[in-house]
């Protein structure tokens, strides 16, 4: 197990380095930040001074070298726009995005799996068919349009929920979270649903397909032949077997949810990392873009590792073969 973990960590590090190089090169070739940031009334001298101060007059390889040196000491650059360390700015907004992503994950798993399993057990019933039809909509309707529709219905017409923004926050484990207050929850619901809808549809379809497949397996028939109650057959025998592919997908999707909740955050004015990324791209705040993408790689790699570990816990066949060689 340790060998396995070490090997995975090594691979992850490689991915991180490759990402850093790609991102750095890519970002540094688009546009000139000084043109965007500086006051239009500034003189040429001001522009030159700012360019020097931001280190943009040096050749690319030198800029990369400086970046790597600093990165090894934990400094991922200073934001052009905010004048503060890029990593700080991103980490400030990380809790908001994580909170949103985790709630969305809970929703999509908590609703998706039961619905998917139900549709798998009774595929030709009205409920089964409507669940599948609904999931198709969740897939195909564009994310921002769904978001706008949610705002329109629940905030503008019905007035039940706020149209955007994050609610009251309280401190929890050293972080500012908003799900512990009623006000916070009311602000969380719509963006979480918006973010969750796509994933939910995915999970429903996956759960249904796997349930159908598993139900046809002999061990399910055998379980029934032993006289087990239908509930036990589904909840223990069927569920545990479909969890393996479902967990894998969930893990992959969680990573992308955290990294790219951009659309939802923009539509709902949610102060998270995704919105920061878009703004930084528009303003050519390169240090923030680079730092953000590297952090994203780290998060996704970590989540994938976690998924693999959980996978081996769920499926004993995997676990033992890894241990034996």
């Amino acid at each position, binding site marked *: 197990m340790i060998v396995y973990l070490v090997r995975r960590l090594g691979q992850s590090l490689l991915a991180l380095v490759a990402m850093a190089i790609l991102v750095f090169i890519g970002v540094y070739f688009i546009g000139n930040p000084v043109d965007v940031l500086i006051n239009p009334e500034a003189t040429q001298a001001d522009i030159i001074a700012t360019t020097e101060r931001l280190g943009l007059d040096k050749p690319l390889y030198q800029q990369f070298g400086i970046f790597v040196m600093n990165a090894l000491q934990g400094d991922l650059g200073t934001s052009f726009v905010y004048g503060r360390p890029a990593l700080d700015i991103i980490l400030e907004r990380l809790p908001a995005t994580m909170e949103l992503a985790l709630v969305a994950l809970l929703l999509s798993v908590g609703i998706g799996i039961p619905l998917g399993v139900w549709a798998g057990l009774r595929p030709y019933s009205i409920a089964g068919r409507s669940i599948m039809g609904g999931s198709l909509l969740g897939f195909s309707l564009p994310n921002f349009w769904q978001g706008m529709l949610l705002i329109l219905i629940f905030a503008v017409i019905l007035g039940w929920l706020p149209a955007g923004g994050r609610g009251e926050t309280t401190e929890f484990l050293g972080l500012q979270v908003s799900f512990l207050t009623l006000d916070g929850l009311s602000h969380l619901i719509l963006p979480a649903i918006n973010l969750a809808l796509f994933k939910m549809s995915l999970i429903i379809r996956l759960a249904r397909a796997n349930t159908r497949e598993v139900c046809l397996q002999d061990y399910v028939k055998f379980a*029934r*032949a032993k*006289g087990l109650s239908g509930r036990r057959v589904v909840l*223990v025998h069927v569920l545990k077997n479909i969890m393996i592919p479902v967990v894998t997908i969930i893990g992959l999707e969680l990573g992308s949810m955290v990294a790219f909740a951009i659309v939802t955050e923009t539509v709902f004015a949610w102060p998270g990392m995704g919105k920061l990324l878009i703004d930084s791209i528009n303003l050519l705040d390169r240090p923030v873009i680079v730092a953000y993408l590297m952090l994203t790689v780290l998060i996704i790699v970590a989540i994938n590792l976690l998924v693999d570990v959980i996978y081996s816990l*769920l499926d004993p*066949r995997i676990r033992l073969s890894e241990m034996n060689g």
Partner: protein
Amino acid sequence: MTALLDVKNLQTHFFTRDGVAKAVDGVSFSLDRGQILGLVGESGSGKSVTGFSILGLIDPPGRVAGGQILFDGDDLLAGGEAIMRNLRGKRIAMIFQDPMMTLNPVLRVDTQMVETVRAHDNVSKAEALRRSREALVQVGISSPDERLQSYPHQFSGGMRQRVAIAIALLHKPDLIIADEPTTALDVTIQAQILSEVQNICAQSGTALIWITHDLAVVSGLADRLAVMYAGRIIEEGPTSDVISNPRHPYTRGLIDSVPQGKRHGAMLTQIKGMTPSLLKLPQGCKFAPRCPRADRVCEVEPTLDPAGPDRSVRCHHPHSEANGKATS
């Protein structure tokens, strides 16, 4: 004394888009307590479906379409799912063909045994474990504690099947239905399992229906044989009788097909043709297209008639008592 199991004119049909497949079409037999019945036939003969029908495990698009299944006097087809669930695993148990697929690969053996115990008896987990351990010992598994902690894929095929048998025995059922339980195993293991099952049934007085396509396997084990073809029983009687004196041409053919050491070097006998598709059954006798003795009379479906004391056969031209001796 009433028979333990009395199947009367069972019909199980599958309603597919291409038509109705009558997998079991009028099957009747009975079984006494402690008796072992060998249900023999090729694939497609309806033998497995018969077994599943008894336990009520036929899934759509299939359905039991008619007949009666009297178990200890009660018609199983008239009761509801709750009654069936009560019986399954407790009074009627089933053993499947491929133990790899019948044991859930992600659950530990003890989990799968304990849940069976607690499905029918309200006992503590410790007590259930104890009983499971006992059952494993009963089927000849050494170091049962280790096995309990393991997962199915850590066993060999024979071991897994023993576990399956142990599970079947947990509640000391009155009847065990074994659907080709040794087909997937090596020959040597096969023999072991066969003899163990025989012992167990003899000791506990459990009735057994052994479903197989392999006459040789079941001939030493069963008290009675019933041969099925295209959803019907075509011959039935005490084992030794049927083996030494097969009346139906099909049964004859089956016995003759078994390779025997004495005829080493000679051509193997075959039954020509193939089993018909259940969707396109011929009119009249279903075996006629392949039968060397068929003629115009066979265009009418024969009925299952007595052919001696305690024998029946479904044929217009059965082999007679005298020349029915199998070539040896």
